[in-house]
């Protein structure tokens, strides 16, 4: 047997050793995970985890979090419309109807100083016409947000909060958000209004317990 043969054998043995150690490590990790899962009584650990009452004692997984915008901190600067990585921002206007005054003269819908309270384009505040106004009974109207048209500029949110009841507000729409590790809107938000929230409480809605929706 030459020196070269001895070297080849050593290399093979070394690879075999590394393989064994790897397999043993994997088995140990798997055993640990199963033990921990059983201990926590958790059957949903993993990416699908939405948190559970026992999550405080859970050392298996950190419940997933998502980006959300705190309406109480938002200053309606308009940057949500321009700073999202998506072509049309994932931040959209939400409306808590229970807080709405159903005003005929809605400052979230009409340009300040609008001469006529009609739905003509020149009277509307929204740059994309994303708010639908429907007559209920004199002098009350109902307002709904067309999600596909909303760009999250917060112009209506500003008007409603300043002159009305503040029933319009921005939220990150999780049907659209890519949940980037470093949210480009959050990074530039001048009010630090963005935060990570548990996916089980993904929305910070006004008027808790009341009907929400677009």
């Amino acid at each position, binding site marked *: 047997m030459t020196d070269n043969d001895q070297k080849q054998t050593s290399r093979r043995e070394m690879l075999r050793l590394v393989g064994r150690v790897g397999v043993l490590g994997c088995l140990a990790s798997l055993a640990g995970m199963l033990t921990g899962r059983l201990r926590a009584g958790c059957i949903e650990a993993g990416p699908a985890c939405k948190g559970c009452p026992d999550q405080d004692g859970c050392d298996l997984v950190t419940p997933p979090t998502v980006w959300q915008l705190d309406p109480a901190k938002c200053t309606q600067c308009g940057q949500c419309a321009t700073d999202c990585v998506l072509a049309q921002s994932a931040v959209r206007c939400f409306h808590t109807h229970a807080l709405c005054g159903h005003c005929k003269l*809605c400052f979230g819908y009409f340009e300040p100083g609008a001469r006529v309270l009609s739905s003509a384009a020149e009277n509307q505040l929204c740059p994309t016409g994303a708010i639908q106004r429907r007559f209920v009974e004199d002098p009350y109207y109902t307002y709904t947000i067309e999600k596909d048209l909303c760009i999250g500029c*917060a112009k209506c949110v*500003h008007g409603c909060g300043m002159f009305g009841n503040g029933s319009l507000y921005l939220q990150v729409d999780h049907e659209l958000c890519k949940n980037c590790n470093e949210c480009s809107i959050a990074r530039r938000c001048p009010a630090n209004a963005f935060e990570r929230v548990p996916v089980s409480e993904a929305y910070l809605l006004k008027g808790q317990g009341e009907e929400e929706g677009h």
Partner: protein
Amino acid sequence: MKTRGIWIVLTLVAVAVVIFLSLRRGGPRVPQAYLYDVEQYREAETQVPLPYKETARWPLALREPRAVAVKGDGPVVVVGDRVALVLDAAGEELRRIELADEPRCVAVADVVYVGFLDRIVAYGLDGEKQAEWETLGEQAYLTGLAILGDEVFATDYGQRVVWRFDAEGKMRGRIRSASKSDGFVFPSPTFDVAADGDGLWVVNSGRRRVEQYSPQGKRGTMWGRSSMELDGFSGCCNPTHIAVMPDGRFVTTEKGLPRVKVYAADGTFAALVAGSVQLGQDAGLLDVAVDAAGRILVLDAADRSIRIYEEQPDDG
């Protein structure tokens, strides 16, 4: 040597481009079309004379002051948190009355009437509790009180009525909307009342006007128009509060663009007392009262103070 010069120039150009791009990125990038702009209306406030001057400001040791009232040239009463503060004409605290609940509104004559969400409680000026009137029900949401003669009137946002009581708290009636098509509209709890020799002046804030009522509930005149201009009322629900001056003029306060204004007895705009420049854009609801000397007392809840405004002699 020539090559080295080219490299220096290229380096300087690259640095300049990087600086330019970074500055450009840091500047305003939000299109004007996305911004809510009421600057022209704020600007209009600076174009008119201010015949009233803030002559004093009384800080209040209250977390959330709610309402203010004054008895002629007598004491001033401020309610908030769970207390009623009785102040003298210089703002010094005379008495502190502990309350059982969160107060919403107040009126004062020889008795201090404190309005809670669903009932009124009467206190002597010495702080003694005199009577607790019956509850007005689960839907009640009292927002304003006024005294006319020996009667007390209370505005109830929850039930959209003005309640009429005698001095002992016995209910004598209620004032409802004059008509369904032209009645009370309140998108938010801004429903105030004041009284003078002409009867009651009720704020119908959703229609952005002030309406006169007899104590029996018959509607008389009304004034006020919906407009972003200085002489009108803007927003969903303005004016928010009203007080009557000794000479019959009115003082109103507004939210949105915070404003304190004086209107003549016939409802025509007379003067801007203070606007968003003086009060700050974040001023909340501003309750108002006027003493016998014509001093305007504005309760600034955001600043937790009472601002005193006095008319300045006309130099002309």
